[in-house]
C-alpha cells in the first residue's frame, strides 16, 4: 500500500480543473452564442451534458476497475472502482438536478416520464445508488470487495447498453447534441462544449485523486494505530464501512 503515492500530480490537476472549468464557463457566457431555438436557457447545456457524460464514463471506469480487481485480487483496484463510482454518483446528482431545471425552463415541467433519456439516466442513478448500501451490508471485507466488483462490472456493462437502447428509441423530445454525423452545433458552441467537458473530466480525475489520497491517509493511520495497539497487546476495532479496507 505504501508504494502508492496517490497525491502525486494533485496540485497540477487541481489547477488544471480550475482553469478549464472557469475558462469553460467564461466561454459559455462570453463567447458561445445563444441558441436560436432555446435562447439563453440553453447555457445549461454546457454544464448538464458534461456532468452526465463524465458521470456515465465514471460508472464504466468503476466497472473496468472491478474487472481488474476480479482478475488480480489487488485491493487497490477495488478502492479505485469504489472511488470512481462514488464521485460519479455525485456528478449524476448534479446532472439530474440541472437537467430538471433545464426541463422546467424548456418544457414547463420538472420531469417528463415519457422521455427515455431522462428515465434511463434515473434508472442508472438508482442502480448505482444501491452500490454503497450493498457494500455496507457485507461485513467480510473480501466478500464485500468481490460482490461490489461484480456489481460494478454488471452496472458498467449496463450503462453503454442503456445508452444505445435510448438512442434507438423513437420518442425523442430530448435534444440529440452528439450524433454520428457530428451534431449540429456551430464551431464556437462546439469549442465551448469541448472545453467544459474537458474541465469536468479533469475535475472528476482530481476529485478521485483527492478521495484516494484521503482514504490512503486514513488507512495508513489505522495501520499505525494497529501497530501501536499491538505493542500494548490491545486491539483497535475496525469500524464497519462501505469503503474498501486495504
Amino acid at each position, binding site marked *: 500500500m505504501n508504494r502508492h503515492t496517490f497525491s502525486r500530480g494533485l496540485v497540477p490537476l487541481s489547477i488544471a480543473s480550475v482553469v478549464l472549468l472557469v475558462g469553460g464557463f467564461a466561454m459559455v457566457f462570453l463567447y458561445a452564442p445563444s441558441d436560436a431555438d432555446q435562447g*439563453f436557457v440553453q447555457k445549461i447545456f454546457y454544464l448538464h451534458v458534461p456532468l452526465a457524460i463524465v458521470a456515465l464514463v465514471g460508472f464504466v471506469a468503476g466497472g473496468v476497475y472491478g474487472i481488474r480487481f476480479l482478475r488480480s485480487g489487488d485491493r487497490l483496484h477495488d478502492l479505485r472502482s469504489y472511488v470512481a463510482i462514488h464521485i460519479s454518483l455525485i456528478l449524476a446528482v448534479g446532472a439530474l438536478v440541472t437537467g430538471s431545471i433545464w426541463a422546467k425552463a424548456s418544457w414547463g415541467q420538472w420531469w417528463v416520464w415519457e422521455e427515455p433519456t431522462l428515465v434511463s439516466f434515473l434508472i442508472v442513478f438508482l442502480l448505482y445508488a444501491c452500490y454503497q448500501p450493498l457494500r455496507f451490508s457485507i461485513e467480510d471485507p473480501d466478500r464485500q470487495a468481490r460482490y461490489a466488483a461484480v456489481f460494478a462490472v454488471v452496472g458498467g456493462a449496463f450503462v453503454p447498453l442503456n445508452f444505445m437502447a435510448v438512442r434507438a428509441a423513437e420518442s425523442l423530445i430530448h435534444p440529440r447534441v452528439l450524433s454520428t454525423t457530428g451534431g449540429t452545433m456551430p464551431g464556437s458552441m462546439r469549442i465551448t462544449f469541448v472545453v467544459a467537458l474537458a474541465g469536468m473530466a479533469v475535475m472528476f480525475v482530481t476529485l478521485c485523486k483527492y478521495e484516494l489520497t484521503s482514504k490512503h491517509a486514513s488507512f495508513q493511520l489505522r495501520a499505525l494505530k494497529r501497530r501501536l495497539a499491538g505493542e500494548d497487546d490491545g486491539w483497535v476495532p475496525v469500524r464497519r464501512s462501505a469503503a474498501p479496507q486495504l
Partner: protein
Amino acid sequence: MGPALPLGDAGPYVAAAYLVFLALVLVYVAIMAAKLSRIQREIGELAELVERRGTERDRGDVDDVTAPAPAGSGAPR
C-alpha cells in the same frame, strides 16, 4: 418544445443550474475538509502517544540504571 424564454425569465434557471453545481463542489470540499481535520487530529493523538511512550521508555531505562542492584548479584552498587 415551447418558444425560447426571454433572458429575464431564463436567467434564474441558468443561475440556479450553475449554483447547484457550485453548491455540490463546495459541499464536497467541506466534507473533504472535515475528513482532513479528523486525520490531522488523529495524527496529533498518535504523535502524542508515541512521544509519551518514548518518555516512559527513557524513564524506564534511567530507572534500570539508577535502581540499586540486589545484594549478591555481582552488579556494582
